[in-house]
């Protein structure tokens, strides 16, 4: 009972000035061997004049599963969507700071968001299959990339559905509408659809929150299997899931700006998952992870 109190009090004491102070004392993640796929430095994200997320600096490493955890409104989804420039679709959204993808700046003037998204895919919270057949859903990505050869498309569809552990269930009804699948199946279909374009990175925004525990387990197994081919970043509010699947975890929290009565997200701590959950450096992290795990 005491820890959450501490956490709440600590949060309430954050003022606007403390925001910038905090930012300067961000924990530096020690660079480790293993290529970094994303490097963000002092990234802040604004919607119009409102600062939604402040000063995020972290590196995502190749062939790892990185989890973003934190309370609601802490900006973890906002940061995730910055990595494949999906925030571009929101009117008034603005990113400050550096976001580098394999050494290249993601927000440079001449960068095409379309090219970015072909290499950095995304799976959404609620499954959103197209109202087309199962086959056409998976083939959509390759087709818009120019693939016309029927034979190759068949291969790609089968490969992607196998990777998503869905092939056996749907192989006899590839021409049926995707909307006839169950929720868990639809989400695996969306994953297959994303894998079909063979991206470099797969971003997942709470992919299991709309699913039952069995479907969730299936997707977590899937993540472990494809980890060696892809790099995965997952936003989750389920801490057990983070401990189960991720190699590294980033804990975000909310700063309450008393003057403007708004909330800004901030990165509190980022480290190997074991460290975050067993022996975190920051008291806020400790409060969050222990408070939930009892």
């Amino acid at each position, binding site marked *: 009972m005491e820890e959450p109190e501490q956490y709440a009090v600590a949060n309430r004491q954050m003022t606007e000035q403390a925001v910038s102070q905090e930012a300067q004392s961000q924990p530096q993640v020690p660079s480790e061997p293993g290529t970094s796929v994303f490097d963000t430095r002092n990234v802040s994200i604004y919607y119009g004049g409102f600062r939604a997320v402040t000063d995020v600096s972290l590196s995502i490493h190749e062939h790892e599963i990185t989890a973003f955890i934190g309370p609601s409104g802490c900006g973890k989804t906002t940061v995730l969507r910055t990595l494949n420039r999906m925030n571009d679709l929101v009117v008034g959204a603005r990113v400050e700071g550096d976001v580098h993808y394999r050494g*290249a700046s993601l927000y440079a003037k001449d960068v*095409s968001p379309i090219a970015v998204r072909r290499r950095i895919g995304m799976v959404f919270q609620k499954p959103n299959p197209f109202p087309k057949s199962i086959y056409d859903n998976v083939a959509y990505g390759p087709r818009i990339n*120019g693939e016309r050869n029927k034979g190759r498309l068949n291969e790609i569809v089968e490969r992607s559905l196998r990777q998503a552990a869905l092939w056996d269930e749907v192989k006899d009804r590839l021409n049926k509408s995707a909307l006839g699948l169950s929720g868990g199946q639809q989400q695996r279909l969306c994953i297959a659809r994303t894998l079909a374009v*063979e991206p*470099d990175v797969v971003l997942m925004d709470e992919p299991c929150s709309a699913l039952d525990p069995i479907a969730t387990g299936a997707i977590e197994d899937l993540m472990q299997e494809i980890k060696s081919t892809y790099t995965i970043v997952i936003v989750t509010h389920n801490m057990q899931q983070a401990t189960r699947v991720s190699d590294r975890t980033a804990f975000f929290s909310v700063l309450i700006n008393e003057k403007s009565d708004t909330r800004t997200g901030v990165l509190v701590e980022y480290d190997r998952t074991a460290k975050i959950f067993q022996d975190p450096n920051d008291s806020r992290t400790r409060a969050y992870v222990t408070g939930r795990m009892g």
Partner: protein
Amino acid sequence: MSAVTKADPAGPAGSARPLSERRPLGDISFQALALAAGLLVLVILVLIAISTSQQASSWFSTEGVKIFSSTWNPSANQFGALPFIYGTAVTAIIALVIAVPVSVAIALLLTEVVPYRWSRPIVYVIDLLAVIPSVVWGLWGILVFAPWIQHIYASVSSGVNGIPVLDSLFGGPTSGASFFTAGIILAFMITPIVTSLSREVIATVPAIDKEGAYALGATRWEMIRGAVWPHSQAGVVGAVLLGLGRAMGETIAVALVIGSSATITSHLLAPGYNMPAVIANEFGEASGLFRAALIGMGVLLFAFTIIINVIARAVVERSGRRKRGA
């Protein structure tokens, strides 16, 4: 489109195919095409105004203010439009007087009285009414309706003989093809649009307000008067204005049943004329100043209906019409 011809493999670490690509040409041209299609609306409206005014310019300049005179005599080169403006106003008003109460009543019927299951067939009937082409209304009007109602007119006219106001309205010479007949047919034709728009407006009344009235023990009619009406007043006014615009512009049915007589008279049961009807009936043989006059009346019609529609749409939007759809 870009030069990518197959799925881009992730590749080994560090393989950075440049992320910069020019925006695909197809993407840009599609957007341009869509924008052009949208602009077409504005372009057409402007062209309508310009081209028709140009054709009518000889009438405007020759007659000057006299375009509003009441003398219409083509053979004497006199082209005063007042009889037709009068006729347009009269038929539209008759149509509104009949159609508005009926349409609003049906709209209330559909939203407040009838359970959802029964509302579908009623809406189908209204849609059926809307689908009957103007010319079929006219055909039926002149060949069936007018001869039949002629008798009623005759009785009414002799009946009101001598009674002050009624005599000037409904007395005097009668004809099956008359202002009033045109007004009735117009009423049938504008009912669907006034009904459907009123329905939309009435449907936006918050359920809380209605429940509040019921909770005070109101009967349904009292709830409608107290909760529904104040909310939807403005929107219904907008719907009425749209009906007015429609009634003013309806051509073919009116052309067939209005009687084709360019006179200004208070006798509604007598033959008359209005702007769209005279244009439709006389255009074929007209030339020179005559034709310019007819096109000029088209310009007036265009101006009137645009103004009325702009006001109507603005009123409807202001009254907080909830947009259909998700």
